[in-house]
């Protein structure tokens, strides 16, 4: 990957609304789950064991791609789909921090009202 394309990729940070919407669907969540083992998978592999058609799976993958969650990688003559966990990790870390701050604020409220 050239330095230029790398910087372009970093600049592309999808809006969280798109990310949450992309994950707010059982099929897409299952696809992310399949890809989270780390190995890029072909569309055929992702379609296997699903009741959906290849076209339907492709459509879901495009939604995930727009949200920056998956990208297409070339493997020989075939295209494979790889998970990009970074946007997901960023949001989870942020929510985790906010969650911890509420734990602390609520603990202070607890001692405030119970004293």
């Amino acid at each position: 990957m050239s330095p230029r394309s790398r910087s372009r990729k970093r600049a592309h940070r999808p809006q969280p609304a798109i990310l949450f919407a992309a994950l707010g669907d059982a099929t897409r969540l299952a696809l992310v789950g399949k890809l989270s083992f780390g190995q890029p998978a072909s569309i055929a592999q992702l379609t296997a064991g699903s009741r959906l058609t290849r076209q339907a799976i492709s459509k879901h993958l495009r939604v995930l791609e727009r949200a920056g969650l998956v990208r297409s990688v070339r493997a020989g003559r075939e295209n494979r789909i790889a998970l990009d966990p970074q946007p997901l990790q960023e949001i989870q870390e942020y929510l985790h921090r906010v969650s911890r701050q509420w734990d602390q604020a609520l603990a202070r409220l607890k001692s405030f009202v119970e004293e």
Partner: protein
Amino acid sequence: MENCIEKRIELKAPVTRVWSALADYREFGEWFRVELEGPFVVGQVVRGRVLHPGYEHIIWEALIEKMEQERLFSFTWAQVQYHDKERYSPDYSRAPRTLVEFRLEPTATGTLLTLIESGFENVPAAWRGDAQRGNDGGWTQQMNNIEKYVAEKS
């Protein structure tokens, strides 16, 4: 994936007591650690000064949404993009906002308080960098860790 935070906590205090700790701006300020300029009024913006050491330059701003006596208190609040003095800006006109709701239910022993914060889909990545939000997250966490460590070892 969840895009809201939900907490439930049992408080050994009557609903009336918990309500005043939330709805009275001076009491709220004590445990939340913010010095508010005036009372909470539905439909109005309230501002205050954050009291966490090192974050006193930060203005806390909320728009009061609902105040249903002893049942529900809610507001939206502006997110702060940068907390360090050099980059901090008190202009929240374009700041993303999240909704905070406190729900109260009487129980046999006191009050069940449910806190929900939602709207994180409105917070762009650039605003998530240093989510201190006027809180001393790191240190309190450290203190808790040390306390736990000592308790386990002794």
